[in-house]
């Protein structure tokens, strides 16, 4: 178990990237797979904001970033599902 937040964040980012690639490669990327892949992308974005950019130590701004990421998810999913 990695205790230091920086290497833990890096390992998480690599793991989430591998999972995204595996999900896309697993089958013809259907709608559910694509939604999962987008969710994993946003989880990576949150990890970068929280740990690399240190927003985890600033809860007010982290909450703001979470709202922005949630809005991005709704917008992208809305546009994707329209197809």
């Amino acid at each position, binding site marked *: 178990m990695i205790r230091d937040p*920086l*290497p833990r*964040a*890096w390992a998480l*980012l*690599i793991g989430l*990237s*591998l999972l*995204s*690639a595996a*999900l*896309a*490669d697993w089958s*013809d*990327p*259907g709608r559910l*797979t*694509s939604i999962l*892949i*987008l969710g*994993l*992308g*946003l989880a*990576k*974005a949150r990890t*970068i*904001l929280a*740990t*690399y*950019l*240190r*927003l985890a*130590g*600033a*809860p*007010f*701004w982290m909450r703001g970033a979470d709202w*922005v990421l949630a809005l*991005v998810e709704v*917008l*992208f999913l809305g*546009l*994707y599902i*329209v*197809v």
Partner: protein
Amino acid sequence: MTDLSSDHGPFDDLPGDLMIWVLIVSELLVFGAGLAAFLAVRATDPAGFASAQAALHPAAAALNTAVLVTSGFAAALATWASEAERPAAGRLWLGAAMAFGVVFLVVKGFEYADLAQQGIGVESHAAFTFYYLLTGFHAAHVAAGVLILGLVAIRLRPYPVETAAAFWHMVDLVWVLLFPVIYLMG
């Protein structure tokens, strides 16, 4: 009882310089708008976008994701080293972050060269117009980031290193949003 004499506000908690955050938010808005436009135009021609996506190189892009998040890790360690007054370690980590940035650009160059060999250009399809616009603009940020990291490594001090690393993390952040939308979502 509330301490009215306290001047502590939310901006005091913001890590790093306020202006770098203004830049980060601006860049995210620009790329976010570009990706939203990509998805909106895709809705008008899903079959055309799917066949264009099939010509892309998701494996190269996945490799580049690993390269860029590793580079971000090195930049974060450079920030930590400069704050701990360990200039040699700081320069080493900045050098590693720059080297990974160059690897990213080389892989991207191979991707562009292969598409060009297939006769695919900016005007081949709307999907490729967005692809070249978004990934090309991002690659320009990577090149600028490598240069900035190199500049702050010359005279290593915590504030410039933290600011340069924040720019680099923004480049990383944009890529983890570009990657699934452009390469993976079917």
